[in-house]
Each structure stands twice: as C-alpha cells, then as structure tokens.
C-alpha cells in the first residue's frame, strides 16, 4: 500500500507538469485552432532566463526563496514577450495566407532556433537551479515527498486557476472566451480577434515559462530540457482533449501516474509505452479527447 501511494504521489508531481504544459497548448488552440510546437522550448527559455535572474539576485545578497519570488515577474514578462513573438513571426503569416500546415512548420522551426540560441547563450551543459525550498524530503503518512514537489502541484494549479479566472472575469479575458467560442462572431461584435490570438500565445508561453521554473529545481536546466516534456505534454493534450482545461489536468495525472506505475509493476524499460498506447486508444475511440467536446465543422 505504502509503495502504491508513493508511486502515485511521484506520478502526480510529474503529471501536473505535463498538465500545465498541455494547458498552455490548449490556450492557443482555443482561440486560433493553432498550436505552438515549440512549447517545450518556451519552457526551456523560461527556466534559463529564470536561472540567470535567480543567480543575479542571489549575487545581490538575497536569500534563495526571496530571489525565486522576485524572479517570477521577470519570467512572466519574458514568457509573454516570447509567446507574442512566436505568434507574430510564425503563426500570423501562415494563418493570413490560409495555409493549413504553415504554422506547424513555422513553430517547429522557431523552436529549433530558440534551442540553438539558448545553446549559444547558456552553453550545452545542464545547469543546477538553486532550490527555493529545503531539499530534504518530508514524511507524510509513510509517503516521502520533496517540498518542491508539493510546490509544483500547487504552483501548477494556481497558474491554471489564475488564467481561467482572468478569462472569465476580466473584459479582455471575455474577449478571449468569445473568440474561442466563435471567432467570426466575435470579430463582428467588434473584438480585435487578431490581438486576442496574439495575447493567447503570450499567455500560453508565459504558462510554459512558469512550468519551466517550477520543475527546474528538481531537475537540471539546459537547452534540451524542454524537448521530451513538450512532446509528452502534447500527448496529454490529445488524451485530455484540446478544448478542455479540466481535461488536460486529468490527462496529465493519468499519464504521470501510469508512467510510474508501469515502471514499478511491469518494467522500467517499458515506462513510456502505456502512455503511447493510451494516446492511440483515445485517438481511435474518442478523437476529441476524453474531456473534449466534439465540434461539428460546418462547411
């Protein structure tokens, strides 16, 4: 029993990260039906910018927890700018030209450029990110958990909740929801849908950048840290459904927990297999995802 709960707790921590990144995919898909395939790189850039900022602040004789908190606004601002840039350079021209797949190639290409840029600025080594919380693990009812893992789960939930509240309550957020529901109608109602899409990309990269600084203290920071995470989160977005904010959380948890359980009960060599099998199953049985609404495309 103890082992099972330990595995589930570890799976939840991993799964929440997948969930946040999948959530950021979902943000842009809702408004523009396009995705940033360089989302893993947005996460990586956020983590590296965060690392530089944290190290600078620690150099100013601040404690690590305070430095970490002060770094967050910088990373948020950077994420917003990076997302807007991706939309401006990669997505807008393709959408304008009515190209069905142009944005796919463009966001992948931008992702590669960002990775090379990061390699040139920060080098190819994996760097250690100072942990704002104590690294000794807590023992809760026989389950060992690192404080930072709790912070990951809480932080992931908070950012998703904050974005949702923003979308539902603020006037700008309502424009986002309106665009997501019906872009043409929103445009006729006087909403500048193009700006809304740019904004949703900015918000999406901001969420990914935040995910980057959340996991960086328990992993290592480096130019390649986003590649695998971006891919797995994409699977989560498909499993959970690209139109459902709730779905990606559940999808993330399903994938995270299946991975650790398979690793333990079947074989660590097959850890990644069930996630992919699940992906295929969902695609063939319910292509809109477990929680997705099937949309009818009117022609």
């Amino acid at each position, binding site marked *: 029993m103890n082992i099972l709960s330990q595995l589930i707790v570890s799976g939840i921590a991993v799964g929440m990260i997948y969930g946040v990144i999948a959530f950021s995919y979902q943000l842009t898909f809702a408004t523009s039906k396009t995705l940033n395939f360089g989302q893993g790189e947005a996460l990586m850039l956020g983590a590296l910018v965060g690392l530089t900022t944290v190290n600078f602040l620690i150099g100013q004789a601040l404690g690590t927890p305070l430095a970490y908190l002060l770094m967050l606004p910088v990373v948020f601002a950077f994420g917003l700018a990076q997302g807007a840039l991706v939309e401006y350079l990669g997505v807008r021209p393709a959408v304008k030209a009515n190209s069905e797949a142009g944005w796919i190639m463009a966001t992948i290409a931008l992702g590669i450029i960002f990775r090379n840029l990061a390699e040139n600025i920060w080098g190819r080594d994996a760097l250690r990110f100072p942990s704002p919380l104590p690294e000794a693990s807590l023992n809760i009812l026989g389950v060992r958990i690192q404080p930072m893992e709790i912070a990951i789960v809480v932080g992931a939930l908070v950012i998703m909740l904050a974005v949702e509240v923003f979308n539902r309550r603020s006037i700008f957020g309502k424009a986002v929801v309106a665009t997501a529901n019906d872009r043409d109608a929103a445009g006729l109602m006087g909403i500048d849908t193009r700006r809304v899409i740019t904004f949703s990309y900015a918000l999406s990269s901001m969420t990914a950048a935040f995910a980057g600084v959340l996991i960086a203290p328990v992993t290592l920071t480096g130019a390649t840290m986003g590649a695998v995470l971006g891919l797995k989160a994409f699977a989560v977005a498909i499993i959970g459904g690209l139109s459902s904010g709730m779905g990606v959380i559940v999808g993330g948890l399903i994938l995270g927990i299946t991975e650790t359980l398979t690793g333990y009960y079947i074989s*660590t060599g097959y850890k990644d297999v069930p996630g992919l099998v699940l992906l295929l199953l969902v695609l063939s049985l319910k292509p809109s995802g477990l929680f997705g609404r099937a949309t009818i495309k009117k022609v």
Partner: protein
Amino acid sequence: MRVSGMIAAVAASIAMAGVSIAGVAVAAEPIKIGLSGPFTGGSSSMGVSMRDGVKLAVTEINKSGGVLGRQLVLVERDDEAKNEVGVQIAQELINKEGVVATLGYINTGVALASQRFYQEAEIPVINNVATGTVISKQFLPPDNKSNYIFRTSANDAIQSVMIADEAVKRQGFKKPAILADSTNYGQLGRADLEKALAALNVKPVATEKFNIGDTDMTAQLLRAKEAGADVILTYAIGPELAQIANGMAKLGWKVPMIGSWTLSMASFIDTAGPNGDGALMPQTFIQLPDTPKRKAFIEAYQAAYKIDRMPSPVSAAQGYDSVFLLAAAITQAGSTDGRKIREALENLNTKVEGVVTIYDRPFSATDHEAITGNIPVFGLVKGGRVVAAHPEDIAGDKAVRVKPKN
C-alpha cells in the same frame, strides 16, 4: 582613418613576412597532431580536461625542443559528442590538415564512427578517454593488415570486473541492483556488469533502465529497494546519476552506489551534493600528489588553468600521458609516417613515465590497451571531491602500478 589602416596593413604584412622567414630559418615545419573531443555539452567536463592535459604535455615537450627537432602543433576540434560531427572532423584532420596522428574521443559512439577513416588512411589514433570495450578491437588483424587504434583509458570490460569485485568480494554485498541508462554506453556496460557478476555467481536482484533526461527515478529505485538490494551498481552519466542519488535521499533509502568512472563527473558530484558522498568508481588517476611526477603535473595544471579542483582528473591525466606516448613513438620512428609511428607504438623500447603509470612496452601488435585491470583503483566521492577509497591500495610502492609483462 584610411592612412592608419594602410599603415596597419603594411605593418602586419612585414610582421608576417618576418615570422615566416624566422620559421624557415630556425626550425623545420611543425608536426600537426589532431585533437577531437566534446568541448561543449554534457560530456564537456571530460573533453575539456582531456584537452587541457594534452595541451600541458605539448607545451612541455615544445619547451624542451619538440620532437625530431620540430615543434608539436595541436589542431583542436569540438566533436560535440555527436557521431556525425566526429566523422566530419576526422575527414578534415586527415585530408585538409594532414595530421600525423589524432588523440582524443570521450564518447564511444564518436570513436567508433570516426576512427575507420584513420584506419583507412593508416594514421594512428590514441583514444585517451572513451571506454567502450570494442573501440580497440574494431580493426584487429588478421582481418586487417594492422590496427591503428590505441587506447590509454581503462575499458568497460576492466571497469565492470572491478565494480563487481569491489561490491561482492571486497565489501561483501550479495544483492546488487543494476541501474543503467538506455544509451549504448549504459546498456553495453550493463551487459559487461552482468557478465562480471555471473562470474562471481551473483545474480542482480533488479536490473533497471532509464532514459537520458528522466527526472523521476522513483519507480526504478522502489523496484530495487523492494527487491532487497543492498548496493546499487550504475552505468550512466552525470546528470542521471545525480537523479539516482537525489531520488534515494528523497525515498529515505540509503545503500552504497558503486559504478563506472562517470561517478567522478563534476555534473554528478555538484548536482548530487551531499547525497553523492560515498559513491565509488574505478579511477586511473586521483588528484593526489603521491609521486613527484604527479605532484608536478597537478601543480602545472592548477597553475595553467587557475583552478583548484580538476574537473575530470582521469581525463586530464590520460590525455597528458597519451601525448608523451605519441612523442616517444615519433622519436623512435624517426619519421612522421603513420605506418612507422604505429610500428613504434607497438614496439616502444623506451620507458615512458606518465602520471597514470610507467609505460614499459604498453602496446604490442595484438594488444592495443595500455591500461590493465591492476592499474585503476577505487575513488570515493567525499565533500565534493574524489579521494582514494582505500588509501592502503596506493600506499608506498603501490603508488605506481604497472602493466604486467606477458
């Protein structure tokens, strides 16, 4: 502006002419030696240390007059630990630069992909860090006329036997768990380890695998723990090894870690911090000034690169020694012809005193491995450094262990 620019150009051309005249007058053309290794990326701490050790040796040799009265010149290239980049570099060094020999290779994959070009061009390669067992056996006679690939590092067959002996015979562990990454390095090493354990009639209680970049080792460690493992044997590289040590601390489970020499990587020691203390690994060289030669080497290294802890002492020492072996061979051959250098390496009649060992006929036509199982000792991670695990093993006249005569 234009006038000053012209003056500068004239001055530069005069200076260059002066240099080339002086070059012709004083010494013959320098001897070009290739150097290939990852100077950026995950294995760069090993690559950079190896390069720095090589450069130190070249500077020393040049100061005392060079080889055959000619200066040594290094042509350094960063292979980024990528096979395809290594291949390009090999072709460039052979065809464009015309090197007489190449030193280097940290990564077994890069070595295997690149060295066939040297074999075809009949130019010797001395692998000074890569450990894959097959590296020196790719072009064995009689299938090939002669083998141009040499090595001055302890290969995986040697290391895995040492790890198994240390865990089972010396420390008396009976239930080892093997944790290896899914790369060629990890999986070939795992196979070697299983073979070495089988020779001692021990079967691992768990054999677990993980991918490069995996951030959570809970499943692997819990399996090992539940199987009752009393020691963890590793074959992986720095960052993931650190995840293992940190994962054990998280689970509140502590058994010793014994593994391949990569447990001495700075990325493991720094990332694992106190959790990495106590890890054991085979080392051909420990940063310990126990002979005058080693003391001089360590001090020269620290002075040249302005550091206290060498990032990878093993790589630096093996790199340093590889230059002296090559220099001795070129001197003996009296020529920079690849075939003659190879012949000289296989029949070295001068003893070469290196920092790892004293090389007395290190190679023969059939044996291209300078390091034998008796040479490496176990290093121990302690307070962010690698120290000798069993000081008695290297005490007194055991400080220098040499390859047995066969």
